């Protein structure tokens, strides 16, 4: 019978799965998110992905203490770059990625030597590839984030990356744009990061917002992963702010940027295919110079 572990789809949860698996000496063949349907159904048939096969299902409650112990062990066995690669792979949010990470962690914990250089191993290789995809998108986004100055003086940017790269962008922007408050908001995952000249905290946008951009969040706010405002919302038309929310003179700056973008083209050498290769279409709605094209 297959062993299925259900957890809350957080990184802490995944590390708790590792802890429980080692305690029970039973290792999962599949990982699943918690949902009520699974809890309600008979435990022998809990595998949503494999509805016809009987399976042993086990619920993991995530605990910071368990996760912390696993993470400490990982830090001992991996280099700093290796830990970073593991975290980047988690942010890929690809289907089946969590099981791959689980297998990788198991390999790391079971091996006596430094394992990460062993690219010949399929799991290590795949994990490296996943982390690479994330880091590539992070590098792209470092260029493709576009801030718009709001009437409140906060610079606002909406993005919709494939992987959850927002946490990886924070160091870069807090350092570079240290003297201006800004928000980078992930439209797909519906959360943002707000820098208020002192530090960065997680925020969620409130809608509607007639009188300005409103948000709540920070350390003490209730964690709420669902949001009302989104790309289709009147506040965020295609990821761009309503003109009434913009600061004075912002439209002019945006027009200048569009004007510059047009003027820089050498007409004799037009090559849209090359342009799309470097800057795929799905980033366009969030770019000031290409929005609406």
């Amino acid at each position: 019978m297959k062993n299925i572990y259900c957890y809350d789809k957080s990184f802490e949860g995944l590390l708790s799965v590792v802890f429980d698996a080692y305690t029970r000496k039973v290792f999962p063949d599949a990982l699943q998110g918690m949902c009520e349907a699974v809890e309600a159904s008979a435990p022998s048939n809990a595998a949503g992905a494999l509805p016809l096969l009987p399976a042993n299902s086990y619920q993991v409650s995530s605990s910071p203490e368990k996760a912390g112990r696993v993470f400490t062990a990982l830090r001992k066995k991996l280099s700093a770059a290796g830990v970073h690669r593991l975290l980047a792979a988690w942010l890929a949010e690809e289907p089946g990625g969590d099981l791959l990470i689980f297998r990788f962690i198991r390999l790391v914990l079971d091996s006596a030597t430094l394992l990460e250089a062993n690219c010949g191993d399929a799991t290590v290789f795949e994990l490296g590839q996943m982390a690479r995809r994330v880091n590539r998108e992070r590098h792209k986004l470092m260029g493709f984030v576009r801030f718009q100055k709001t009437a409140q003086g906060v610079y606002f940017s909406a993005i919709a990356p494939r992987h959850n790269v927002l946490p990886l962008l924070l160091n870069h922007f807090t350092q570079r744009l240290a003297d201006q408050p800004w928000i980078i908001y992930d439209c797909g995952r519906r959360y943002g990061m707000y820098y208020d000249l002192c530090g960065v905290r997680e925020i969620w946008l409130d809608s509607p917002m007639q009188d300005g951009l409103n948000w709540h969040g920070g350390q003490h706010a209730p964690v709420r992963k669902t949001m009302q405002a989104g790309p289709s919302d009147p506040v965020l038309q295609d990821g761009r702010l309503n003109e009434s929310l913009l600061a004075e003179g912002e439209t002019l700056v945006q027009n200048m940027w569009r004007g510059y973008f047009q003027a820089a083209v050498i007409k004799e050498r037009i090559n849209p295919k090359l342009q799309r290769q470097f800057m795929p279409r799905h980033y366009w709605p969030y770019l000031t110079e290409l929005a609406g094209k």
Partner: protein
Amino acid sequence: MNEGTLKKLKILAESAKYDVSCSSSGVGRRNIPGGIGSAESWGCCHSFTEDGRCISLLKVLLSNYCIYDCAYCVNRANNDIPRTAFSVSELVDLTIAFYRRNYIEGLFLSSAVLKSPDHTMDMMLKVLRELRLTQRFNGYIHMKCIPGASQELVRQAGLYADRLSVNIEIPSEGNLKRLAPDKDYQSVYLPMRHIQQGILQSREESRRFRHTPRFAPAGQSTQMIIGASPDRDREILLLSSLLYKGPGLKRVYYSGFVPVNGYDSRLPAASPAAFAAPVASNTPGASGLPGSSVSPVQPIKPIKLVPKVREHRLYQADWLMRFYHFEAEEILDESSPDLDLEVDPKIAWALRHPEFFPLDVNTADYAVILRVPGIGLKSAQRIIAARRFRKLSADTLRQLGVVLSRARFFLADSCALPAGGAAHGRSFTIQEAGPAYVRAALLDKKTRQSRAVPAMRQLSLFDSIH
């Protein structure tokens, strides 16, 4: 900033766009307290225009009023185009406004020649000083030095800019004097040498003292226009290789000539005869490979635009010189003054030197492995690392990133065959099949199809038979 600034920006960006350099790499710098901006050593592209080129820096001229009359330049004195100039505060505000919105990685400042080279440099330096000292701007700045600028001004520019560049524009002095009567090589090479001296001096000082101002930390670069003069590829590459060795340039850029002033009789676009020679020697008939399926030499048409392939091949040759241990003399010898447009320069070299191959990657030196077409820098390094653990076969080579469709002609059987040694996957090596066969096999699909013999068909009564 107002609507007027927008108009100026459009005009001055139009005038600056033919400068190809747009890199923002080569210097890493953290922000300072109370400052704005940082620099990433690997660079960052912020957008891509419709022609597929990246926008990394805000590339503008300070002014496009020019006293010079260079035949190839859109801003030459005789052209009837709108002229304008930024004020210092205008350009500084614009740069900071764009930077705060993450549109750009920094500023690329160039200018047409106002009054005199030194006067122009002085104006540009004002912008740099305002940005660095008043605004405490830490982003990337690339500044063009005007040919003929004095040493003192170049020295000051190096203290504020990350990269300095002086454009050679035309690869031979005779042609430069013909096309740009106000310039000569002295005026280009002197500032170049001043920059080099500044860089060396700052490097020397940083060894001795703990804190010393950095001078143009991202080095210097230059640009050559390709196709505005009848210079051959060999001369261009020899000059580049001299520049990499002598003044220690980071990059030489090649800019395919766009005929912005088609009516000037000094330019090849207006007189197609100037192009006749290079084009003829690039056709396959002249490449000296008997037996390749050769089509008759095409009639020469006047070329309006330099083929992008030529520009691309020059960059490939440039990479061979900088990273692959090739000498310019090896890439193009006296018998072949122009690059082969159909195959890349590395393949072209391999085809001229069949005696070098086939070789076994399990035993060959790194520098030798680098010469195999289909093996790049990374895969060569991986080969060196991986062969310590196991013998490499075709399968492992593929995993390491080798392009076997190209490399197989140049590798010995021991490493070009699949692990089991199955002979059916084997292809002829260049020694067995000869360069002509390999060349035909390595042509890209389009060229190969255009060369193919038309399919046989039923004769018609009305066919003329010779």
